[in-house]
């Protein structure tokens, strides 16, 4: 695997740190007037999701991490593993609970998501920014209410719980922003 010098550090670069694959978030060049230059780097550990800060001496090198993002279709869950497929090649991957993490509550079978692979093994799954899911359970709708102020909880077909406006009813399909977990709108009529 390639090595990278601190001069090449920039957001999104994948490196190995403490034997874990990490992604650089931000790199700040720090130099006392007449002293040694450092790079103060914010890094996300891609296995744990934790963000840490770490200082390097400028010019030091670190090993790159073999991490790639691939769009895949979510197929099904067999009780233990979640199965995904690369649409172009039909290549399949199975991800365990730690890799799918919280993303699973947004994934409907056949939906496309982004799988992050490390050394060709699933590391994490990122759902699309917006998903459209049907409501399976919520309090009865109130006719005439359009303000949406306050709202009510609704359970979606994947098990996710989202606050929705009072007028939205069981069986309706809604659009949700997975980054914030918030209701966006009713899905457009098919």
């Amino acid at each position, binding site marked *: 695997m390639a090595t990278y010098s601190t001069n090449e550090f920039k957001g999104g670069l994948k490196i190995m740190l403490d034997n874990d694959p990490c992604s650089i978030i931000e790199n700040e060049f*720090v130099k006392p007037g007449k002293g040694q*230059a*450092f790079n103060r780097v914010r890094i996300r550990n891609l296995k744990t999701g934790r963000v840490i800060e770490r200082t390097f001496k400028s010019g030091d090198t670190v090993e790159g991490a073999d991490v790639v993002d691939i769009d895949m279709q979510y197929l099904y869950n067999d009780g233990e593993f979640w199965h995904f497929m690369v649409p172009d090649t039909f290549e399949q991957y199975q991800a365990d609970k730690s890799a799918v993490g919280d993303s699973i509550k947004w994934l409907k079978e056949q939906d496309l998501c982004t799988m992050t692979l490390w050394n060709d093994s699933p590391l994490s799954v990122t759902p699309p920014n917006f998903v459209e899911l049907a409501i399976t359970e919520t309090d009865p709708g109130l006719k005439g209410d359009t303000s949406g102020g306050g709202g009510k909880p609704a359970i979606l077909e994947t098990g996710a719980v989202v606050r929705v406006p009072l007028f939205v009813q069981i069986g309706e399909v809604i659009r949700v922003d997975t980054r914030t977990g918030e209701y966006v709108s009713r899905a457009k009529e098919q």
Partner: protein
Amino acid sequence: MTEDWQPTADLSQLKSRASLLAAIRQFFAQREVMEVETPLLCHTTGTDPNLAFFRADYAGTTPQTLFLQTSPEFAMKRLLAAGTGSIYQICKAFRNGEAGRYHNPEFTILEWYRVGFDLQRLMDEVTALLTGYLTAFFPELLVERASYRDWFLRYSGIDPLDFNAPVYRAFAEQIGLPEAAELCGDHHALWLDLLFSHHLQNRLPVNTICLIYDYPSVQSSLARLHPADPRICQRFEVFINGVELGNGYYELRDAVEQEARFDAEIQFRTRQGLTPVCKDRRLLAALSQGLPDCSGVAIGLDRLLMVAGQAQDISQVLAFPIGRA
């Protein structure tokens, strides 16, 4: 169509730069300090292992490598030795690889030397220059001075003059820098650089010109050692709101000691596998001839403009930072 022909600084920042340059020239004219110019392209460069330089190919009758200066210091000292009296210069300096929020590889420096001034007197003049310019931007600007040791002790509890690796390591761990021990090992100056830039610099008071003086001798650079205590040297740095603006010395005049420091730096470069450099024999010759008793300081003008204009990135005060140069 690409937009990258345009300046990154807005017009008001370019105007601020013009007024700053005018204010500086007026300041020194009133004090009868002479403006000088020295070459940006030089036959040699500094030996400082922490400064990376740019090279240029000169294609004259005897082709040779020239260097873009990392600071005008050596050439200005040659002028001082030639008897100019107090001088100042506003020029570009170049440091290879230094790019970031507060760094552009090419930057503007104000450097001046005061014959007959000790360090405290030069610090008075730095304060006068900075307050004169900055009061328009900071109505309640304060000034504070502290010795490096007092200030370091106050915010860390550890003594910067007494290197004790386990004590330093424990402090680094306490402030969330567990990697420090591996980075710095038993290199005292490196420890000080790390703790200073990562922790202490952020603790400087706001809206205040801070002058920190009497640096540890392991960071003496071209400053004279203190006659009463060789563990400290007569050097200061000036900061505003945690941003380092400048570095000043009671200048070393001893050609023999200067050459010894060059040799030590050259050896250090060799050990670290850094690009080899030659000593500036013309500076050493000038020092042997006799440098007048003087203090000198360099101020980064781009950073001063950043602080005055509350810019978050140096590109906001430069017409064309390196990405658009």
